[in-house]
């Protein structure tokens, strides 16, 4: 276009503008300004000439068929994604299982204790019933006092 030799470097401050020029991103006024400069600057003219010639040459790359993913591409990516997660999954699963088991044990234990507490135990041995009687008789109730006394004393007596 400007008939100068190629391989020269353009004015550094103008390079971005020159790229805009060859890529046709400039308005008519801006393009005219670039051309005016190039007429009086051999370096910019030569660089423009060269860079401009690269546009159709490199444009040939777009005519090349693009590489296509294989039919299994998505499946393989997802398998890899799951595979990498699976490194932690067994650990995670084991931790959860442990959590559940621990919770279950605590709950069963709590239920059992509650059950024990609710049930008034049937006296299996006289000694235990004596203790029970002592504990239950805390308020002074004359009617039972004698009974409990008798019980305790009889227990004492038994020993």
């Amino acid at each position, binding site marked *: 276009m400007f008939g100068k030799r190629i391989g020269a470097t353009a004015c550094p401050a103008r390079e971005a503008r020159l790229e805009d020029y060859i890529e046709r991103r400039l308005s008519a006024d801006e393009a005219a300004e670039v051309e005016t400069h190039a007429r009086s600057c051999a370096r910019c003219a030569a660089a423009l000439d060269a860079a401009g010639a690269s546009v159709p040459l490199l444009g040939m790359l777009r005519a090349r068929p693009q590489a296509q993913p294989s039919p299994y*591409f998505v499946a393989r990516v997802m398998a890899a994604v799951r595979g990498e997660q699976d490194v932690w999954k067994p650990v995670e699963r084991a931790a959860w299982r442990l959590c559940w088991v621990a919770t279950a044990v605590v709950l069963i234990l709590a239920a059992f204790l509650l059950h024990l507490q609710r049930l008034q135990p049937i006296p299996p041995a006289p000694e235990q019933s004596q203790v029970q009687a002592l504990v239950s008789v805390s308020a002074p109730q004359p009617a039972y006092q004698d009974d409990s006394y008798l019980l305790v004393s009889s227990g004492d007596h038994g020993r």
Partner: protein
Amino acid sequence: MTRSAGEGQRSEVADERQLVRRAQSGDEAAYEELVRTHQHRVVAIASRLLRGSQEAEDVAQQVFVKAYFSLRSFDLRSKFSTWLYKIAVNECWNHLRKKKARPLVYEADLSEEQSERYQGAAQRSGMVDPEEAARQQDLVEWLLGQLDPKDRMMLELKEAQGFSIDEISEVLELNPNTVKVRLFRARTKLMELYRRRLNPSRPAAKRG
């Protein structure tokens, strides 16, 4: 119901954002959908930047695996595709660095005979014959292979993948002005190599 192009695009963006949000919260099906949508572009980019290497598909897969595990760091306000391409370019770059020792197909030197053929191909204008078109493309590939890898990648993203200046600047984390300057310099370098290759005996060939 008909929608305008703008509306359609906006809802597409919204749909994608929805998918990303779901994938971020661990929905694998949503991520699978994202992979399906973007696989072609990512494979094409990897294959382009890795110069047709057989490993391009593996690298592309790695891109999606990496993206999956860094999904939480993705800011929903930015564009998912650009974020993905950034990972793709980085993966390709790392892959190239690891493989540096092995000479790449296009970087081998041209034989005298090849040079003759390319010269003919480049000088005849108007691509009629597909064989000749392929030869011209091979010449371009060879020229690109002579450039600094970063310059080459930039030109390839621009010219082969149709990236905008803004996209390149986001993907390579450079400011748009720097991208333009580097692209322009890469172009002049490429053409200097072209001139030297085709006219080795004439250091200052006249053109035009």
